[in-house]
């Protein structure tokens, strides 16, 4: 290696060679289509779906991949307070400017090249006037800011996600606004040009602070606040090992979700002051607030399911936890209890904050009016059930987000975690354009509607087969007793039947057949993936 810059570049290249090879192959295919199959210079009328499938989806996936690669996001803990910049590089004989500068230079250059390659090689629909420079600059700016914000240390776990998403959204919003008002390319360039230098300065400060080991800490403030009513209890003994473990899980992961929701809520509800005169926007803001806990739970799930929160590179269970004299099922039960408390705490915040915000903004009458409309439309009992069911669905969905990937994270195998991410992205990259394609075709929509019961039936078969396999493995490995398995199955049946009963009562019989609602109820209540968590933990714990 001739220089440190070459060594840093080599590390990116070597570590992500398969991703880069895949990208090169994709660009080669595009080039082949453009140069050989389609006549050069000829305009092509590609329909939206094909264009999405061929260009937009792979490009978006690569964009996200580059964000993760060049911010070192694939090997760090996104939710942690510490900087995600690899600590091993702090001891290299390099200036902080070089440590921040080289990865940023490589990242921004890669983003710009990705755009330019796509711009020249993609077979753009004939009516699309695609600009050249400013999108490259936008992509580079987004990457540079992602690097700066992920390399920064934060005073609270999870704050990195919020700050990064909010700041990138602000940049996007500014660009969308400029596009809406048909800003010329020179103005777009003027808006975007300062971003990379500013992000570089921010990244330099972030890396310098991380190099000195500076990690701000607000947890002490929250801990002191939480300690006030807790003083007498703190000295009490835990009545059982299970309670002690549940306490540990709550302290380790439980407070992240309520904290994230508490940080976001004031910003979201503050919008009510701005848009209180526009009922539609008020409705959208409230819907956004209600979706915040499940949305943030999806981020929180990564830390809950991580088996070793202390080592950002490690997926295995720490010996401290692995040698607790508890069964793997008890360790999972403690996690589940902590996630239930976490979900309830997050929703308590939402339920307290919404009425206060409605009262302060004077938008309460609007909500009362919508309630009256609902009662008039479906009657009081149904209206009550719809509201309760909707609320329960949101709470359950929050909890489900926290626990449904437990079995992946707790497996302790890096390849399982990475494969699940790859499969999820692959499925998404197929489903999104497919859904777009189907939604624009009446015939296909009709066929899909008719096939829905069959699709649901197939999914139910998969789910129940998986659940039976998991139950047998749980029984054979002695992780759960027959009684516990039967009790769990009975509880699941009761919940499914209750949900089915409610759905039958609510849904018009003409629109949905009874068996379709039964399939929906079976699919809605978690079973197989949740039951697989003790198996995954045991697989990790006893390697």
């Amino acid at each position, binding site marked *: 290696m001739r220089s440190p810059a070459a060594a840093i570049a080599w590390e990116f290249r070597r570590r992500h060679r398969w991703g880069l090879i895949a990208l090169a192959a994709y660009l080669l295919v595009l080039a082949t289509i453009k140069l050989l199959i389609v006549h050069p210079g000829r305009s092509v009328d590609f329909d939206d779906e094909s264009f999405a499938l061929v260009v937009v989806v792979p490009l978006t996936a690569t964009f996200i991949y580059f964000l993760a690669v060049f911010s070192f996001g694939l090997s760090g803990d996104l939710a942690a307070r510490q900087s995600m910049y690899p600590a091993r590089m702090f001891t290299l004989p390099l200036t902080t400017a070089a440590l921040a500068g080289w990865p940023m230079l490589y990242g921004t250059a890669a983003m710009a090249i990705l755009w330019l390659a796509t711009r020249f090689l993609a077979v753009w629909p004939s009516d699309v006037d695609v600009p050249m420079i400013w999108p490259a600059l936008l992509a580079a700016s987004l990457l540079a800011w992602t690097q700066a914000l992920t390399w920064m240390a934060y005073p609270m776990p999870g704050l990195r996600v919020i700050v990064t998403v909010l700041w990138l959204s602000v940049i996007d919003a500014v660009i969308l606004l400029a596009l809406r008002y048909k800003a010329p390319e020179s103005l777009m360039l003027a808006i975007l040009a300062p971003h990379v230098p500013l992000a570089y300065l921010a990244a330099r400060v972030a890396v310098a602070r991380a190099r000195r080991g500076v990690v701000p800490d607000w*947890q002490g403030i929250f801990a002191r606040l939480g300690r006030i009513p807790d003083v007498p209890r*703190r*000295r009490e*003994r*835990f009545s*059982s*090992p299970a*309670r*002690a473990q549940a*306490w*540990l899980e709550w*302290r*380790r992961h439980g407070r992240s979700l309520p904290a994230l929701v508490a940080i976001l809520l004031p910003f979201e509800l503050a919008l009510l002051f701005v848009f209180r005169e526009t009922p539609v926007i008020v409705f959208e803001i409230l819907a956004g607030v209600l979706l915040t806990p499940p949305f943030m739970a999806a981020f929180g799930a990564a830390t809950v399911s991580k088996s070793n929160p*202390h080592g950002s590179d490690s997926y295995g269970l*720490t*010996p*401290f936890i*692995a*040698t*607790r*004299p*508890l*069964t*793997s099922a008890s360790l999972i039960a403690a996690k589940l209890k902590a996630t239930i408390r976490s979900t309830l705490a997050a929703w308590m915040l939402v339920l307290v904050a919404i009425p206060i915000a409605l009262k302060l903004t004077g938008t309460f009458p609007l909500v009362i009016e919508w309630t009256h409309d609902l009662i008039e439309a479906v009657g009081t009992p149904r209206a009550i059930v719809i509201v309760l069911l909707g609320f329960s669905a949101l709470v359950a969905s929050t909890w489900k987000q926290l626990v449904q990937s437990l079995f992946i994270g707790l497996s302790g195998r890096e390849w399982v975690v990475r494969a699940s991410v790859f499969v999820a992205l692959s499925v998404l990259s197929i489903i999104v354009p497919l859904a777009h394609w189907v939604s624009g075709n009446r015939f296909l929509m009709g066929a899909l509607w008719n096939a829905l019961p069959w699709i649901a039936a197939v999914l139910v078969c998969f789910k129940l087969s998986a659940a039976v396999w998991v139950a047998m493995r749980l029984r054979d490995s*002695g992780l759960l007793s027959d009684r516990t398995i039967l009790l769990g199955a009975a509880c699941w049946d009761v919940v499914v039947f209750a949900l089915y009963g409610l759905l039958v009562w609510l849904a018009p019989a003409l629109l949905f057949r009874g068996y379709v609602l039964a399939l929906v109820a079976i699919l809605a209540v978690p079973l197989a993936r949740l039951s697989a968590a003790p198996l995954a933990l045991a697989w990790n*714990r*006893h*390697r």
Partner: protein
Amino acid sequence: MTEPVINVSDLTRRFGARTALASVSLSLPRGAVYGLVGANGAGKTTLIKHILGLLRAESGSVRVFGLDPVADPVGVLSRIGYLSEENDLPGWMRVDELIRYSRAFYPAWDDAYAEELRQTFALDPAAKIKTLSKGQKARAGLLIALAYRPELLVLDEPSSGLDPIVRRDILGAVIRTIADEGRTVLFSSHLLEEVEQVADHVTMISQGKIALSAPLDIIKESHRCLTVRFAEARPQPAAVAGVLRWEGAGHEWTAVVRGDSGALRAAVAGWGARIIAERVPSLDEIFVAHVGAPADS
């Protein structure tokens, strides 16, 4: 005869192409201190992880107190005190929280003993684990491993990277545990002088195999160190039955001999050389002679 505390039978473990343990068999009766010594990567931690149930036996079997540690983790782990080399105590916990949390798992937890240990180790109950020094963290780990007077104390490289004062605390804890009748200590280390101070029985492990396992007294009695002076300088003396290793240069060479040294004495006479010193070798010398490398290599 009482049942052994640990019974490992024909245990083999592979990690990919590398064999970490090859047909290891070991039986540890109750009430003694067992030193497990070996170079880094020899298989000590792998063996200990099998004993704790953190690794599943691929072939062979592991029984602790007669139980399978994988099938019955609660039955086994509730009777073991374990201090890990990794020192992975949760950094966010305070010392008093760590004690409060740990005591919930062990019905035999002795509050008075825990407090005594805390004071002996000068651990501030309000201090967060992450703010403690490495030595203090080791002491905190030792406290929660000892406070319920476990039947089996497993220490995996406990003094690795620690200062002499903390090492003395750890050795003191081992000695106190031995003082409790019927308790057993399994002590893995590559600091052989420490093992020599406290172990009754030493098991040497090399490249996943047991190179030597015997009571320390017998090991010492069965090995001799003889220094030979040759009339002419030699690059390497010839191999002789019973000689495990030659070390030295030029005219003077030292042999570590196992068992009877008669063959060496006869050879020395035949070479026209003479034995100028004879002594009992240190455990370190015996280890190097058996595994062919210094213990901390």
